[in-house]
């Protein structure tokens, strides 16, 4: 397939990034990157200022083109959604009312009233990203093995293997992975696999000016998140909770935990996150069993009918 010249900047597989500071991540993220350990993102939405540094850093490092040049009319969000070319996406949710009396019936979008709580002026921002799920549905569905778990416990699409079947797209419970129609392959956040190999923390985390995006070892991040939730509760933000940590919303239906998890202050749906995603591969066996036993039953009926059929050949 001819690749459109503007689909992606030319690749330099032999390129060398000179003068890398050894283990730079120790300086920028306070973490040493070693194969065999679990890494992830803790995205604390309460300190996100919607600057989109992460989006830009991601595009620059990974050489990803813009999706649509246009206006969405959806607050400051002209990116819209994660896609094959957009691996970080900042949500902007302009809440009409203060958190406490927002009701389920009133969609939290669009117009703002003036009676806002001081907290974030009723504005929620969240930098969304691939969750690098524990039982990653995209990886479990991938028939070629293009999607795999790296030595850093992250989920990556191998571009030289993907044949663009698109099955992972429908498997992902978070609408993350997508096909690029220009090159016919699936793309998503790699948690900067290349940078991790070189001792650099992911581009978005390094660029985030408020530490809303924190990169680190998973167990370490879980502790930090728990402390942060406690702190917020103590300061009166009782709505704070984690999404994607073990036993929390997002880590449901056999999805034990998400390597990229979030600290939220409104219900998951407000951020376009599913409250209780499930692991699709758990449905394989029951579907097979139901189908095969139906075939067996009908084959048995057929055997009875054939055996009882008259011998006349008219």
């Amino acid at each position, binding site marked *: 397939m001819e690749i459109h010249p503007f689909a992606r900047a030319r690749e330099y597989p032999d390129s060398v990034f000179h003068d890398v500071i050894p283990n730079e991540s120790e300086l920028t993220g306070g973490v040493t990157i070693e194969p065999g350990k679990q890494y992830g993102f803790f995205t604390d939405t309460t300190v996100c200022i919607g600057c989109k540094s992460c989006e830009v850093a991601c595009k620059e490092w990974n050489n990803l083109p813009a999706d649509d040049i246009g206006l969405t009319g959806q607050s400051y969000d002209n990116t819209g959604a994660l896609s094959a070319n957009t691996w970080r996406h900042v949500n902007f949710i302009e809440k009409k009312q203060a958190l406490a009396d927002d009701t389920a019936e*009133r969609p939290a979008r669009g117009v703002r009233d003036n009676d806002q709580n001081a907290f974030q002026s009723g504005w929620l921002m969240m930098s969304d990203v691939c969750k690098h799920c524990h039982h990653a549905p995209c990886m479990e*569905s991938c028939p070629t093995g293009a999607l795999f778990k790296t030595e850093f416990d992250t989920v990556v699409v191998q571009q030289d293997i993907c044949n663009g079947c698109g099955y992972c797209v429908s498997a992902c419970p978070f609408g993350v992975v997508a*096909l690029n129609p220009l090159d016919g392959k699936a793309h998503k956040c790699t948690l900067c696999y290349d940078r991790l190999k070189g001792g650099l923390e992911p581009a978005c985390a390094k660029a985030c000016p408020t530490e809303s995006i924190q990169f680190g070892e998973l167990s370490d991040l879980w502790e930090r998140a728990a402390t942060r939730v406690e702190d917020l509760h103590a300061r009166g933000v009782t*709505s704070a909770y984690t999404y994607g940590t073990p036993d*929390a919303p997002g880590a449901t239906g056999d999805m034990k935990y998400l390597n990229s998890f979030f600290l939220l202050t409104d219900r998951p749906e407000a951020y376009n996150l599913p409250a209780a995603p*499930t692991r699709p591969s758990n449905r394989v066996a029951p579907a097979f069993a139901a*189908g095969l036993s139906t075939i067996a039953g009908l084959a048995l009926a057929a055997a009875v009918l054939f*055996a009882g059929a008259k011998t006349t050949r*008219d």
Partner: protein
Amino acid sequence: MPEHRDGRAVSKGAASPEAAAWKGPTYYGRSQLKPSPFNAWVVGGYIFLAGLSGASAVVSTVAEAVQGERGASIGRKGRYLSMLAPLVGAPLLILDLHTPTRFYNMWRIVKRTSPMSLGTWILTAFIGGAGVAVVAQLGVDLLGLKWLKRIARLGSAPAAITGAGISTYTAALLAATSAPYWAADEKGLGVRFASSSIAAGSAALALGEKSRSTRRTLNAITGIALLTELVATAVHHKNVKAKGVGASLESEWAHIEEAAVLGLGVLLPLGLYVASRRLGDRKRAGAVSDLASLAVMAGSAMLRVSTIRIGQDSASRPEVSLRFSQPENLPKKRRA
């Protein structure tokens, strides 16, 4: 769900699982899911042909096993029909890839969590068995090599076993995704696809069948399969609604499903079978039966196309997708 979240009940619909679509906040009306990029006609066409081929291998092998030499003509037809999946179906699958030149990567691994991977291997095994059988059958038919009959029949046995697989794994393929309509009731989808496959396979075998008794037997099998499908459809739709995905049953393609799958594919042929049995005139009875067969096959194809489209629609609508991912829909044993 932690109580402290925002002090509100998790969902208004939490008390009644029958509750309709999600009415809470959405992110500018966007779904949190991406719809499957499958081409509904291409992939639906494959699923239909795999079902027809696989099931005709099952039914014809059963006929030969039970009736012996008397069932040989059905066996022969079954062997030829089973070539639809490899000759037309498999190319459709490759056509739907977005990098078709790499189709062979499907054989890189075996993965039991991926119905697409399992299906690749089942289809490969089916092509093996059915291929041996059809080559032997060609030897019998074209070269008059009678001794090949045994081999043709031997090849049909593995084709029937793997045929059961290729006519049903496609339900698992759709169910093992996050698209609400496909994921809501994996068993219901399994029964619907399986019964529709048997109906299509048996209807295809009956097409143009001269022997009246054989035709009647095949039509009876198709009839039972259609009745199974009818019941399975009702149960499936009920379960889908119970999971809050009912709104997707009001979409355009759900109406097409109603007309093309239930009307054309199930109810019409059931009526025609009754009529064909009553007709004294043999020629006309055969024609009516053939018409019914065609309707069954068309309905079976449309079941797959409409199921794909309804699933894609359910994944694109936040009021459906956010409702489906509410905690009350979690599998029971996993609930805390």
